[in-house]
């Protein structure tokens, strides 16, 4: 009995710990007094009104970069995933390892490496990669591609090759079979890969910090640099809005796909 209570208490504390920062953000964003203090003194929404327009511009940049990253990750990831699961070619195991690399390379190291590389690139070609949307997208592809590949590989694990044979037998060329049969059947994992890439791109700080700049600043980086210098109430309001947006996104995803499917939690 005591053991049961102890476990319950531990669980409650653990879940409270997990949710605390998110909940507090929303509560405090309405605080009329100093935003870093608790308890809130009085209720106000004026922080929301004080949000500067550059944050919305940054949100725009984030969305564009995330969308492009997702699309490119999937487009480049799909052939690689198919090759890894079906092909037997020299270097296959090596490629498999390379594509696991995001776990190995810290995001910060990728960020500074790309920054350094963009300087070298500038030296040689006079083309700027840093501070451009393209640079940001390239930076985010470093984790977007591997995660798409892994998502599609996971979805491909139980692929029924008889379906492709049936299509070939019915007269479809390999290319037609690919578009009419293979892709539709893999669609859930392709979409999952795209969503992972999208969400990770929206969230990234280290890479976007070093590859972005000026007009090409993503929302997390804009918030990051703001918080470094001045922690005003409007930052809390922005954070609360992001929480709201994320919850909305989660509800939408759950409706469309079912979040438990996405995370493989269903046994």
């Amino acid at each position: 009995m005591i053991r049961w209570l102890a476990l319950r208490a531990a669980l409650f504390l653990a879940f409270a710990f997990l949710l605390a920062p998110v909940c507090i953000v929303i509560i405090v964003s309405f605080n009329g007094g100093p935003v870093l203090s608790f308890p809130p003194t009085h209720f106000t929404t004026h922080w929301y009104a004080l949000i500067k327009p550059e944050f919305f511009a940054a949100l725009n940049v984030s969305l564009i970069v995330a969308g492009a990253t997702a699309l490119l990750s999937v487009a480049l990831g799909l052939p690689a995933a198919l090759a890894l699961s079906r092909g037997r070619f020299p270097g296959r195991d090596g490629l498999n390892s390379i594509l696991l690399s995001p776990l190995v390379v810290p995001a910060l190291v990728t960020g500074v490496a790309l920054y350094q590389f963009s300087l070298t690139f500038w030296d040689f070609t006079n083309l700027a990669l840093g501070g451009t949307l393209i640079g940001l997208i390239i930076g985010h592809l470093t984790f977007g591609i591997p995660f798409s590949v892994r998502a599609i590989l996971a979805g491909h694990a139980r692929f029924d090759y008889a379906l492709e044979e049936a299509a070939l037998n019915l007269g479809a060329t390999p290319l037609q079979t690919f578009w009419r049969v293979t892709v539709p059947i893999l669609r859930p994992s392709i979409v999952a890969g795209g969503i992972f890439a999208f969400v990770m791109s929206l969230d990234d700080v280290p890479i976007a910090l070093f590859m972005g700049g000026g007009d090409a600043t993503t929302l997390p980086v804009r918030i990051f640099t703001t918080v470094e210098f001045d922690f005003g109430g409007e930052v809390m309001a922005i954070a609360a809005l992001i929480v709201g947006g994320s919850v909305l996104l989660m509800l939408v995803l759950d409706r469309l796909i079912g979040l438990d499917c996405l995370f493989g939690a269903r046994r």
Partner: protein
Amino acid sequence: MSEVRLEKVEKRFGEHVAVRDIDLLVRPGEFVTLLGPSGCGKTTCLRMIAGFVAPTRGRIVMGGRDITALPPYRRNTGMVFQSYALFPHRTIADNVAFGLQVRRLPRAECDARIKDALCLVHLERFADRYPGQLSGGQRQRVALARAVVIRPEVLLLDEPLAALDPKLREELQVEIKRIQSTLKITTLFVTHDQGEALSMSDRVAVMHDGRIVQIDSPEVLYERPNSRYVANFVGRTNLFNVVVREKLDGGMVRVETEGASKASFIAAVTDLKVDVGARCLLGARPEHFHFGGGRANTIQAKVRGATYLGSIRYVDAEGSEGQSFAVQVRPGEPTPSLGEVVVISWRPESCFLLRE
């Protein structure tokens, strides 16, 4: 409706030879079954005709054309897979439509043909459902409809009924046969179930270890197997050793058991060329053995046991030289008791000789 020929076809997978030197002719409109246990090469032959496996040696000719080098999507064969392979993301109608869409047939003709195909398999009402909503038997029929709607030159069926329960299997065997004879499509069917093979086919090719051991009509295959393997694989057979003693008129020989009893029988010889003094096997089906005398061949045996299978009852008996006999008991006939010594008799035309 074309003929299909495998000419000296061989298939190796590395060291393993799956198909050895096969010559097979399936005539236009004929229903031929490849029968054999797992690993005998029957599915490999089918897949070579479909184009999913390339033969190591030999040619495949269909309707006069050498198709050996053609990719599967240019061969115009219709295949029904063991797992049906219905596209889960398409409705039943769209599944059946697939081959027609790829051939760029005009919409009106597509719709007409799809309707006919679904009517043929009695699934018109299911056109807008998805494969996941259908039962196993229904999915099988959709797979069949999809394969025939493209009007292939040859229909290939890869153990299509293996996943179904016996009752459903019987129904679908009749269905498939009906559709095949209506459409008169050249058909090659693969199965390990001999009952299926015998009931549906014009000819059956029994395969063993990559070779065709015997190919004949079901009756000939059953009544005159050419080897111990075929005799045992298709139905039950009584087999025991004998020696040829005398050649008689009318294609008969007199044979004798080797032991002390020197029991003598007359047997029909078909293709087997035997010399006097040669050892071979005498074979007879249990249903051709009778209790009591009255026929030319007789032998004494002691009853050792009985097996009841509902519609059939077998009695196991042992001969004086240790041979085992299985006798099928007629309905209404009394069953001899355990330990009883009985006389078993059969007609010469009902038994056959096999090489040892």
